[in-house]
């Protein structure tokens, strides 16, 4: 093998790339985007769409840049007449049998056929003949809908199922212009990563059944975020609506899409994470502060924090602080955990802060993304609560309640019923003298508590979480909280004020700075730096 790098010229500009780099990647390095459909950096090279044809000097005919390896002294023209003509011709071929489905196609607006048609397309159709008919709106999996007519047979999805998910559900059948993508007979595209084929499909052939007809993509805004579905912390893009809320069933969050981050999730996310957005605005959201034994009115934040403070103070003075336990969610942000520690441990001297619930029997790590631990920030909880608590396991707390040693609990955004059973939780809380729930949803646990404080879900607040490998990731606020909900940090801050304890800042940046000064794992990290580490958003997946 020759030297480690090669130098080549693309469109008159010289670029040095590691040897073995494909021309398309070398061009990307120069900021030149060569149109392509079948090429995907994470998949093997198919070279079938022929869209990335470029002119290379001394080559007899245009070469596909996704497969041609850059060589020393190569002179590439991506914008010459030959390359442009070739590209226009390929696009014409691709569109020859592509149906005029844009009006009903969910991909419209983020479709590469549309995009390249606008830049390199031939506008006057030479086609007089009928298009080939293939199957439409075919359900090929729980999440994916196939429209074979729209398919340009780039085989990205086939390669995804072969190489990434290794589940081999998809194949291309028939020959010539009757070639058709389909699932193999008897197989359904139901692997845990099936939604990704929708992202990598450059056209509208594979669409998301969940997103289907909900909203046109050009009404959506995008914001970067971090998936809270498991301890992986996949980087995602949140697509949301701010206006025209008659679309998308009146919900703001329309979908999650993976955001490329080579260090965490690459190009992909799992289906569980992708569809976890549904819980964010479902009808079980808690909108207002509540007192369940009262007359069901909405006392408002100021009144309820006062009442909670009175009840908690009198409880502590009657039964002692040892009878109080805090159950925190391991999905809270680092800042919220720090604030909880400040409030309950430093302020109220509660020593029992539990967060650990072992994963269920069905939760296992897989070798791609999915982690058994379904909490987003267990690592952070270990760092922040770990050193001081006397009861890390929730099971311990439940046992002590059963023994009657704990008579009050404060549950932070956690539903215990899936892990421990609804009946048990209801029975245990029934015997408590004081119970407070601060969280985003109504469920068995929160319903059985006496005081309910509504808090924001993760798209409605900002903060940082630490994934299973200790990587701290920032996520911003996407949409304002629903109803009277407040970010947990602010809820804790108000509680602290009502209890007349040391004030807690509601600014996550300030809290993180305090946290980083104290916990070894976060030392040397600044909030501003974490914000800078967002990977960029691209509306159309590469």
């Amino acid at each position: 093998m020759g030297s480690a790098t090669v130098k080549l010229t693309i469109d008159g500009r010289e670029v040095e790339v590691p040897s073995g780099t494909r021309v398309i990647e070398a061009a990307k390095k120069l900021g030149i985007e060569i149109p392509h459909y079948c090429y995907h950096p994470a998949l093997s090279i198919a070279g079938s769409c022929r869209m990335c044809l470029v002119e290379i000097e001394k080559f007899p005919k245009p070469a596909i840049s996704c497969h041609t390896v850059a060589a020393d002294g190569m002179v590439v023209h991506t914008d010459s007449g030959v390359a442009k003509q070739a590209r226009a011709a390929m696009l014409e071929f691709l569109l020859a049998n592509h149906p005029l489905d844009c009006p009903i196609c969910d991909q419209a607006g983020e479709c590469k056929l549309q995009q390249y048609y606008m830049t390199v397309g031939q506008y006057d159709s030479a086609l007089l003949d009928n298009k080939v008919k293939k199957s439409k709106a075919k359900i090929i999996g729980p999440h994916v809908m196939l429209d074979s007519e729209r398919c340009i047979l780039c085989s990205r999805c086939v390669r995804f199922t072969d190489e990434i998910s290794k589940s081999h559900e998809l194949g291309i059948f028939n020959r010539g212009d009757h070639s058709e993508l389909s699932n193999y007979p008897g197989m359904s595209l139901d692997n845990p990563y099936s939604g990704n084929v929708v992202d990598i499909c450059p056209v509208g052939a594979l669409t998301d059944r969940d997103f289907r007809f909900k909203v046109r993509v050009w009404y959506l805004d995008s914001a970067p975020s971090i998936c809270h579905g498991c301890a992986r912390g996949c980087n995602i893009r949140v697509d949301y609506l701010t206006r025209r809320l008659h679309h998308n069933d009146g919900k703001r969050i329309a979908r999650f899409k993976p955001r490329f981050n080579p260090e965490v999730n690459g190009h992909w996310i799992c289906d569980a994470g992708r569809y976890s957005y549904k819980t964010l605005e479902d009808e079980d959201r808690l909108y207002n502060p509540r007192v369940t034994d009262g007359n069901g009115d909405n006392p408002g934040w100021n009144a309820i924090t006062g009442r909670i403070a009175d009840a908690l103070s009198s409880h502590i003075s009657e039964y002692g602080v040892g009878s109080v336990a805090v159950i925190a969610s391991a999905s809270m942000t680092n800042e919220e955990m720090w604030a909880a520690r400040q409030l309950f441990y430093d302020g109220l001297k509660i020593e029992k802060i539990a967060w650990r619930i072992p994963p269920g029997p069905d939760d296992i790590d897989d070798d791609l993304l999915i982690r058994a631990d379904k909490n987003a920030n267990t690592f952070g909880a270990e760092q922040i609560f770990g050193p001081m608590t006397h009861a890390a396991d929730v099971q311990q707390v439940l046992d002590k309640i059963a023994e009657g040693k704990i008579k009050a609990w404060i549950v932070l955004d956690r539903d215990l019923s899936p892990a421990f059973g609804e009946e048990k939780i209801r029975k245990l809380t029934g015997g408590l003298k004081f119970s407070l729930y601060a969280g985003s949803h109504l469920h068995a646990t929160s319903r059985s508590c006496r005081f309910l404080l509504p808090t924001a879900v993760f798209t409605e607040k900002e903060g940082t979480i630490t994934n299973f490998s200790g990587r701290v990731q920032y996520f911003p606020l996407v949409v304002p909280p629903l109803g009277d909900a407040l970010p947990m940090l602010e809820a804790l801050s108000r509680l602290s004020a009502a209890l007349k304890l040391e004030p807690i800042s509601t600014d996550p940046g300030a809290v993180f700075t305090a946290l980083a000064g104290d916990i070894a794992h976060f030392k040397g990290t600044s909030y501003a730096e974490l914000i800078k580490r967002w990977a960029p958003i691209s509306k159309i997946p590469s």
Partner: protein
Amino acid sequence: MAVQNIIKVAARRREATLGFWERVYIFEVVRGLWITTEHFVGNLYYHILKLFGIIKVHPLTPTIQYPEEQRTLAPRLRTLHRLVRREDGSPRCVACMMCETVCPALCIKIVAAEGDKPQIEKRPKSFDIDMGRCIFCGYCVEACPEDAIRMDTGILDIAAYSREGMVLDIDTLLSLQPAQRRTDKEVDELQRRLLQ
């Protein structure tokens, strides 16, 4: 400064075009009054003739007695929208949201749904046009890829007792019919009238 100068210059120019007697104005007032009086007297004469049935048509007034007498509409005049049906009676609209997107007045609201027939993949579950907001620009008709919305009902008098009443739903829009096609003679007549 500059702006004030411009105003001054403009004012000077305007004054410069008026002669002295024009600037005195009172004579111009009289001239104006003379014109209006001429019309007044002339019209009064014809009104009286008409009142006593001596003539049938007042030759000077172009007034059309609106609800009884309808003006002939130009064939391409944009009037109240309607949704076009397919041959089988279902709406042509496929809820592509083109019109909703292009509408500068944001008066169209469409909710899409899965088609109810195998050959129709997407259909509008609801299609509301808020006529209180519509500015009759016709962009929706231009944008429609399916020729599903047209503004050819010939209905211009759109009124309701409430804002909600101005919102037309899909059933109303589908029930509207195109205006009667004019004969060539009618169009010629119309053009002659408009050119006069």
